[in-house]
C-alpha cells in the first residue's frame, strides 16, 4: 500500500513512523532541517522507555512520487488549502486523503442532505482549494487521540497506544477505508471506523471551542480557567452556543457537556496546544476551532454572541503577534 505523509510534525511522524514499521510503503514529505535530520538519522519514535527507528522513504518533492493509495495530511487546519496544492500530484481518482485537522473540516456540508448542502466554509477553505483539489470523494476525515511532540528534528515522543478514529466523508464503509484500518492495526495503531465523522468532529470541537481561545486570551492553563467563576461562565456559553449550532445542522450533542462548568474543577494541569503554539510564536488555529462555529451559526441562523466576541479577540491577538494565517477574506465577510 503506497502511503504518503504530508507534514512531518508530531502526528505525521507518529502515524507515518508506525505505518513504515508495519511494512507499508511510506513516503514522508518534509522540508529543510527536518528533512536533513530524517535523512541522516531516520525517524525515531519514543514511547515511555521504548525507542524505535522507522525508515520511511523521504522527499521534499511530491511531484516525483506518483499517485498514492493514501495521503495523510498532517498539517494545521490553516495550512490545508496550501497543502492541497502541494499534494495534487499524489492524487489519483481513488486516492484516499486522510485529514486530521482540528475543528470543523471544509467538506462538512458536502453531501449533507438538507438546505445547506454544498455550502462552503470560508473560515477553513476560503478559496475553495480543498474542495476543488482534494474533493469530497477522496476525503477521509480522522480524529487523532495520541499526545505527541517533536523533541528534536526527526525525534518524536508520543503517548502509549496511538488511536485514530476515521471515516469516509461520504459515510460509506468502503473497501479502501477498511484496508487502511487494517494497515493501521497491523502497525500498532488502534483504528476505529466511524459511521458519522460529522459527529466526531463536533465532539472533538467541543473539547476545544471553550478552553483553547480562553487559554490564548489569558495565557492560563486549564486549571485557573476552570477555577474562576467568570471564565467558567464564558466557557459554558461558548460550549452552549456550539451545541446549539450543531443541533441546527442535525448533530445532537449532550447538554451534559455543560455540567463541568457549573462548579470549580480541580483538574490535572494541561496546556492546550493552541496556547503552546502562541508561546512558540506559531500561527493559531482559531478559524477552524472558533471562527467556524460563528460562520456556521450565521449560515443556519443561530446567534453566537459569545463565540463572536471571543473569536474577534483571539483573531486580533493573533494578528497583533503576526500569528494569524492569512485569511483576511473570511473575517471581513463574516463581520
Amino acid at each position: 500500500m503506497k502511503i504518503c505523509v504530508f507534514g512531518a510534525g508530531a502526528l505525521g511522524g507518529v502515524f507515518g513512523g508506525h505505518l513504515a514499521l508495519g511494512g507499508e510503503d511510506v513516503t514522508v514529505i518534509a522540508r529543510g532541517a527536518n528533512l536533513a535530520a530524517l535523512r541522516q538519522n531516520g525517524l525515531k519514535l519514543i514511547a515511555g522507555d521504548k525507542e524505535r527507528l522507522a525508515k520511511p522513504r523521504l522527499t521534499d518533492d511530491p511531484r516525483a512520487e506518483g499517485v498514492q493509495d493514501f495521503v495523510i495530511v498532517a498539517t494545521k487546519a490553516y495550512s490545508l488549502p496550501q497543502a492541497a496544492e502541494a499534494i495534487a500530484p499524489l492524487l489519483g481518482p481513488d486516492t484516499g486523503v486522510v485529514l486530521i485537522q482540528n475543528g470543523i473540516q471544509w467538506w462538512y456540508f458536502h453531501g449533507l442532505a438538507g438546505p445547506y448542502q454544498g455550502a462552503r466554509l470560508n473560515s477553513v477553505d476560503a478559496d475553495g482549494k480543498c474542495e476543488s483539489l482534494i474533493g469530497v470523494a477522496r476525503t477521509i476525515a480522522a480524529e487523532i487521540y495520541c499526545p505527541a511532540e517533536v523533541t528534536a528534528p526527526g525525534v518524536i515522543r508520543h503517548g502509549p497506544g496511538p488511536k485514530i478514529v476515521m471515516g469516509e466523508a461520504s459515510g460509506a464503509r468502503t473497501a479502501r477505508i477498511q484496508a487502511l484500518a487494517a494497515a493501521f492495526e497491523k502497525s500498532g495503531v488502534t483504528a476505529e471506523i466511524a459511521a458519522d465523522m460529522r459527529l466526531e468532529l463536533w465532539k472533538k470541537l467541543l473539547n476545544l471551542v471553550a478552553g483553547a481561545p480562553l487559554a490564548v486570551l489569558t495565557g492560563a492553563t486549564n486549571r485557573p480557567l476552570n477555577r474562576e467563576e467568570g471564565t467558567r461562565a464564558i466557557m459554558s456559553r461558548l460550549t452552549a452556543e456550539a451545541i446549539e449550532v450543531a443541533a441546527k445542522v442535525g448533530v445532537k450533542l449532550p447538554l451534559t457537556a455543560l455540567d463541568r462548568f457549573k462548579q470549580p474543577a480541580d483538574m490535572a494541569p494541561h496546556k492546550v496546544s493552541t496556547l503552546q503554539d502562541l508561546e512558540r510564536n506559531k500561527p493559531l488555529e482559531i478559524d477552524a476551532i472558533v471562527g467556524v462555529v460563528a460562520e456556521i451559526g450565521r449560515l443556519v441562523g443561530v446567534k453566537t454572541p459569545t463565540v463572536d466576541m471571543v473569536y474577534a479577540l483571539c483573531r486580533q491577538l493573533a494578528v497583533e503577534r503576526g500569528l494569524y494565517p492569512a485569511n483576511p477574506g473570511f473575517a471581513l465577510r463574516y463581520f
Partner: protein
Amino acid sequence: MFGPGAVGGYAGALLARAGHDVSFVGRGEHFAAMRANGVRIRRDADEFVAHPACPDSPEAAGPQDVVLIATKAHAIGEVAALIQPLLGADTAVVTAQNGIPWWYFQRLGGAWDGRRLASVDPGGQALALIGVERAVGCVVTGAFAVESPGVIRAGALARYAIGEPAEGISPRLASLSRAFTVEGLEAPARARFRDDIWSKLLGNASISMICVLTGGTNGTTVNDPGTMRVVRAIMAETRAVSEAIGARFLTDAEDRLLAALRTSTHRPSALQDLERKRPMEVDAIIGAVCEIGRVVGVPTACADMIYALVRLRAEVAGCYPANPGFALGTVI
C-alpha cells in the same frame, strides 16, 4: 504627593514652581532621582527643574493641607494606611486615580447611598482610614510619562478636574481649584464630578481592556469590525450602568471612538503595565462597572466577560494583586 510617578510628579513640580510647599513621598528609582536632582519637566518648549521636599517617610512630612494620591487604584487600601501621618482633621485627600473611586457610593444620596465598593475598597480600609469627609476626586486628562528616572514628559493638555463626593462646588473645592490652577496645570472644579469619572471610564473600560487582551492599539481595536462590536457593547453597558445610578454622559460613544482613531497608535497604559509586568488597574476600571451594574440591576454581560478575561490575564502575568474580596458573584 504620595506616589509621585508621572501624573503626581508633574502636578507636584508645577505646584512647587508656583510657590506651594510641596513634598514628595515615594520610593524606587524615579523617586531617588527626583530626591537627588529635583524633578525635570519637559513639556513642549517649557523645560524646568523643580525641587520639592523629598522626606524619608510620611512621618517626616507630617500633616498636610492636601494629599494627592497618584498611585494605582488597586493599592488604595494599603495607601490609606501609609498616609496616616500626613492626615490632619481638615486634610483633603485627592485621589488622582483611574476608574471608579472607592468613595463612589458615599454621599451619593438615593437608594444606594453609603454602600461600599467591594471591587475597589475590598477591606473597607479607604473608607475607614481616609474617610469620606477628606475625599476629593480627581480625573486626570493628558499624556504623562516618566521618560527616565527624575524626568517627566507631558503633553500640551494637563487637566486635573476635581470634585466632591457630595457634588456641588464647596468652598474647599473652589479653593483647591484656585490653588491647583497654575501655569501648565488646569484644575477645574466640577459640580457633577461623577459625570467626569464615567466619561473617562467609557474608553478605559472598553478600548483599553480589549487592548490588554489582544495586545493591540487604539487603532487596531476600533478598526477591526469584530473588536469594534465588543467596544460598542461595553460602552453601551457602561453608559446604561452610569445612567441608572444618575450620571450624565459628557462624552458621546461616537466621539470617544473618533478620539481613539485620532490616537490610533496609542497603546493604553493598562497594556503598557501588562507588558512591563506592573500591577494593573483592573478592578477600578471594569470590575467596578460590573459591580455597580449588579447593585443597580443593569446587566453587564459583555463587561463581565471582559473583566473575567482581563483579571485572569493579569493574574497569570503577575500583574494582579489578589483581590479575594471581590468576585463577580459577590456584591456586598
